[in-house]
């Protein structure tokens, strides 16, 4: 399912434009991250995707159909939306009822719904009789995500899904999102954590002051220092280090670092460029790599504790 923005202008109050001509396309099955400072227009863009906001001008197309022609419930069947604050979403007295809520609202087949809820309860490890309001913040966020996932929408939109979560909860939430994407779901995510973006997104769209200022494959965008500076963004530390190396040793570093397409590859490239073994780490890893396992780049994952907890560079 594709999402297409064509010269979209949007505002909450007609006098203050928030989006000023936004163009982009998210293709079926892509994992796209939106980055930008607060007030750049990211959340407004997300609200346009699921029809909570209609464009003042231009078109937002979901699978070729303008959102202005679709009812909210029709859009809800196509686009699942995870809000930043799970407490806005949770409204039932038990976890089971919460997971069934979407099916009831959309008047879907309840036999199928019960089966799906059983699957999700097992997958997420919930107790279906728990009171959602008594769960901790991370579990409530997981429940909010689960209540979207259970509906099997072809697109999910995540508005800062890791806000307020501790590291382990982040890993859990992001692991689930990665799995959904691998199963073919189109994922659109707003995120301030550039390392999460670097670890997960295939493509990045940079927004600033209501405009898309850059878009492209994640590492192409993250290496573009000029764009990031213009949008007041700070790249992941290893990218910054690699950019510094590119200046110090243009030939060697450029060749190695320029070809890296994951943070792990970039760490390996930096290690190689500075002649310090095969791995340098300056970050905790969100990527769900088993301790001791090798990833595609042949990098051995840290045993247990991320570098930040061992007095690493971050």
């Amino acid at each position, binding site marked *: 399912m594709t999402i297409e923005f064509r010269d979209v202008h949007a505002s909450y*109050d007609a006098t*203050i434009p928030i989006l000023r001509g936004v163009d982009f396309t998210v293709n079926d099955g892509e994992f796209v991250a939106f980055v930008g400072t607060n007030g750049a227009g990211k959340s407004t863009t997300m609200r346009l995707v699921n029809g909570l906001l209609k464009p003042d001008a231009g078109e937002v197309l979901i699978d070729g159909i303008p959102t202005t022609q679709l009812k909210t419930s029709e859009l*809800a069947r196509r686009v699942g939306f995870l*809000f930043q604050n799970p407490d*806005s*979403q949770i409204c039932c007295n038990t976890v089971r009822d919460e997971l069934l809520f*979407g099916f009831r609202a*959309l008047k879907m087949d309840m036999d199928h719904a019960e089966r799906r809820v059983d699957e999700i309860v097992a997958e997420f490890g919930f107790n279906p009789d728990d009171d959602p309001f008594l769960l901790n913040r991370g579990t409530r966020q997981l429940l909010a995500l689960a209540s979207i996932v259970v509906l099997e929408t072809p697109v999910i939109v995540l508005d800062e899904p890791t806000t307020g979560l501790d590291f382990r909860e982040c890993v859990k939430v992001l692991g689930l999102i990665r799995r959904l994407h691998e199963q073919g779901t189109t994922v659109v995510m707003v995120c301030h954590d550039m390392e999460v973006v670097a670890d997960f997104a295939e493509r990045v769209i940079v927004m600033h002051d209501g405009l898309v200022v850059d878009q492209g494959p994640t590492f192409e965008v993250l290496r573009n220092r000029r764009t990031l500076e213009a949008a007041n963004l700070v790249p992941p530390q290893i990218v910054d280090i690699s950019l510094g190396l590119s200046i110090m040793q243009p030939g060697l570093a450029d060749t190695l670092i320029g070809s890296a397409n994951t943070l792990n590859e970039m760490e390996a490239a930096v290690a190689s460029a500075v002649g310090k073994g095969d791995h340098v780490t300056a970050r905790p890893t969100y990527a769900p790599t088993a301790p001791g396992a090798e990833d595609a780049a042949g990098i051995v994952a840290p045993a247990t504790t991320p570098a930040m907890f061992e007095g690493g560079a971050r």
Partner: protein
Amino acid sequence: MNGFLEYVPGTSLLHRMNPVAKLLFAVLFAITCFCTGNLVFLCAMLVFALALAASCGMMKQTFGLMKAVFVFSLILAILLIFTTPTGDRLIDLPWGYIGTGSILAAVTTIVRLEAAAIPLFLTFYVTKMSDLSNSVVKVLHVPYKYAFTFSSTVHFIPVFMNDMKGIMEAQTARGVEFDVGGIVNKIRLMVPLCVPLLVSSVRKTNSAAIAAEVRGFNLRTRDSGYKQYPFAAFDVAAMVLAVLLLAAAICITVFL
């Protein structure tokens, strides 16, 4: 964009008035509206209230308020039409009749409520909540706890309205159709949303109370506020005007 009852910055005369003077004026104005049933006088009061709103650039907010008050007063007006059989008989009912007096009573109620509400709400739009509570403590010697409770309550109204908006949007995104069906369907859909609103309200209120405690809330006294709230000539004039209006309303009721 400012929300319901949120302070709107400005430099108008109403903005600069003493907060206590504004509050007293608004209260006396409201009492005046309820002291007379003279429709002409009430219409004049409504025009005066609208002029006050215009003088501080709050017409947009005032019209929004008037719409909300109109819905409420319309319910009362309909009740009055069917339960106040006075004046020339217009329509017969099984339990009485609708007369010209019934219509007049209904219209009077609408105008009275509109006129009484505007200055009260304007007070909040043109006064910072902190100034209002501090001045009430300093000038009227109201215990700070009560002033703080009142100002916190008012402060939380737009917060909870925003929360409710966020909750409704979250449910809309899950397929709840608030825009279809009648009022009964809407109420049915709204009921489950009261749970998250209540939870978030209790959490916010609890956090605010703890934050106030850890910053020495109980140490606050009437004299611990730094800012002074002196009365200017215009403040006195406004209160005198309010008393004169009240006296006029009483005279009209007694002598006409």
